[in-house]
């Protein structure tokens, strides 16, 4: 008797949709000289956790990372390949996975406050992971890594966190109904 480990089709479709959103976000990247670029991909990564929950959110980020790692240009600014994953900005990419899981766990129950808490902590985790990687790779001390890897992004990421929270609060029930949680739309 084969066990059915296959998730429902709607969940696969949603996970692939968010992977595509994260990848399409690669086109929109504004470079900062000497540091990681400003991207929109982290917004979609956090949103995937908020809307799809920890497991499916992680799945979409994993798909994005896997497709990027084997060389398709889906990382920020149209880059790709394993070298990018192992490079100085790889910490942020690992942070996406962490953020999707944690944001998904926090925002299990719908609502603006929990959504905001989840997305804020998600963005902080991305920045934290990115900073750690920068610190390790470039032999920086904490204040320098903070100045290069976190501070330039804080204002914009705060805006993104609020956007994520609003979008998640507005569309959470819709996403849940698609995933077969709660009332199914007729």
């Amino acid at each position, binding site marked *: 008797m*084969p*066990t*059915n*480990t*296959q*998730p*429902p*089709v*709607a969940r*696969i*479709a*949603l*996970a*692939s*949709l968010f*992977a*595509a*959103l994260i*990848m*399409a976000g690669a*086109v*929109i990247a504004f470079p900062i000289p*000497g540091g990681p670029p400003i991207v929109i991909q982290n917004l979609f990564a956090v*949103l995937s956790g908020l809307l799809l929950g920890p497991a499916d959110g992680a*799945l*979409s980020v*994993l*798909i*994005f990372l*896997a*497709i990027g790692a*084997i*060389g*398709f*240009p889906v990382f920020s600014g*149209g*880059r*790709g*390949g*394993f*070298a990018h994953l*192992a*490079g*100085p900005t790889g910490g942020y990419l690992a942070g996406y996975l962490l953020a999707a899981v944690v944001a998904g766990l926090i925002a299990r129950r719908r609502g603006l406050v929990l959504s905001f808490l989840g997305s804020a902590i998600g963005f902080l985790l991305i920045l934290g992971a990115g900073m750690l990687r920068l610190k390790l790779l*470039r*032999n*920086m001390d904490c204040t320098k890594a903070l100045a290069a890897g976190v501070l330039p992004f804080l*204002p914009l990421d*705060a*805006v*993104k966190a*609020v*956007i994520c929270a*609003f*979008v998640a609060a*507005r*569309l959470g029930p*819709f*996403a849940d109904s*698609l995933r077969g949680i709660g009332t199914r739309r007729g």
Partner: protein
Amino acid sequence: MRDLEFFRNVSIGQYVDSGSPVHRMTPATKYLWLVALSAPAVASLGYAGALLPLLSALCAAVAAGVRPSFLLRGLKPILPLFLVVAVMQFIFGWPGDRSAVLFRLGPFSATAREAHIVLMAVARTVSLVVIVGLFTSTTTEGEAAHGIEDFLAPLARLGFPAHAFALAATTALRFIPIVAGELESIVKAQAARGADFGSGKGGVVAKARAYLPLFVPVMIRALERAEALAEAMEARCYTGRGRTRFVVYELQRGEWVARLAAVFLCVAIFVLDSAVSAPLAALLGVFA
């Protein structure tokens, strides 16, 4: 409206269809070569281990009918990164670094050890870019996704949804132009109504609110696309179990030889690297 057409020139992948025997190999073999050449490029001790995979990849590219210059072109976007790494090493010193000083500039100095670190980083990155470029230029998106499934097959026995993962990866690649098109059409629609993105004044919340008319419709349209896809698949009784593929990959002649060669090459590079790296380093005086 030129600024709004983000996605006109986006192409994912860089497949070069030369129809060579390398192209016709099964995805599993290509993944094996990808891993076998990447591993020493990432984890080697010295220059030999970082550069031999590059040499092997360039030879394989010639065999596959892919021009090496085409692969090396992939280096262009990361050249500034090399400069950043070099400048960082120049500015920040390593504690306890007693290697020879190559040159000084004001309070900063470049030592042999720092030069070694920069050169190794460049060698590793160049190797990886060419290896990955070779993979993507000989493998289509569909093959790559099917290959992921084959590669994850052992994990499927442990309960990992390998088939779902591969399906979602394939679908995601198909979704990219659709999602991009939706985003573009909504940005245009909002701009036509006089929307102004990015220059909004006020606090964080006010700025975020300005973007909501962009994100909520994009997300709704995208979610509806996913819903339509799921319904279409359910209507066709998709279950994911016992599913066959439209394209069946057949082992080419000599493909097992190619697989064994990949493993052999990987081991040989590691062995050679560990044998050569210490004398080479001593010769260059890196750790002196």
